């Protein structure tokens, strides 16, 4: 029982230590100059390590810092503040 508890806790801690990779499908993202706002909004987030905008796939790829995450609600809020709509969020 003691070993099982340690194993579960170790597993939970190791999950938390990884960075999250999130793909966000965005509607209306047709202008690279306007989409700079998305990059700026996410770059200002403390939990975000890296942000990549792909206009061909209408995709925003977010990599969080180790052990940190960003909620779907926060992603939708930042995309909306940049002037766009979230179509889909996929977490890897």
């Amino acid at each position: 029982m003691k070993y099982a508890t340690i194993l579960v806790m170790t597993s939970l801690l190791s999950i938390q230590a990884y960075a999250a990779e999130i793909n966000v499908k965005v509607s209306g993202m047709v202008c690279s100059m306007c989409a700079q706002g998305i990059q700026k909004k996410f770059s200002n987030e403390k939990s975000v390590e890296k942000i990549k905008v792909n206009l061909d796939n209408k995709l925003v790829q977010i990599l969080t810092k180790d052990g940190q995450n960003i909620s779907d609600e926060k992603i939708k809020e930042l995309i909306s503040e940049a002037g766009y709509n979230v179509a889909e969020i996929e977490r890897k």
Partner: protein
Amino acid sequence: MLKRLFGLITLLLSTSVMSHPVIYKGGTVVSSFNMSSYSDNQLLYSFSSRWATGLNHWRFTKDQQNTEIGLARLNYLLWRRNTEDSQANIYLLSGAGMMDSEIDKKSTAVAFMSGFEADWETRTLYTALKHYQFNSPATSDLTMTQARIGFSPFESDFENLQSWFMLQAMYMPEIEKKIILTPMLRFFYKNVLWEFGSSTRGEWMLNLMVHY
């Protein structure tokens, strides 16, 4: 004094841009649009994704006489439609400040601006329509209507230079009875946009815009 103030504002804004009247929350736009008969210099700050405020200076020139207008601006995003491959917007524009007129009637007076802007764009097509109405109790009213259509021969990605062929039609009945057509080239790279062209009556046009 008023002319010096306008000149100072123009100088301060001369490194900037023109774009959507409202951009992302916390974003600033600086723009400078110049023709020999018209110029439009803006400094706008979007304090939400629907509202922007800032300063604007315009110059209208007719027979070497200028009317200059300096206003505080308030812009509102009335409607936006995002689809997978396009974005469409309608904005309401307003402003209040001073007008220094040499055209038709010499006077310096309080002035107001109202207008709208609408656009629809994909990654390779662009259309826009803009209208400004300037009113002042002591001077002649002025209007400017601008329509634009453009296409890009290829879809560039986020980090690459974008190139566009554009055609602009401007109508300023108090300045020029005919519609001024200006074919132009538009480029943008990251947060900087620049456009240049020459109108069908040989008038140059240069526009520079920066988002930050």
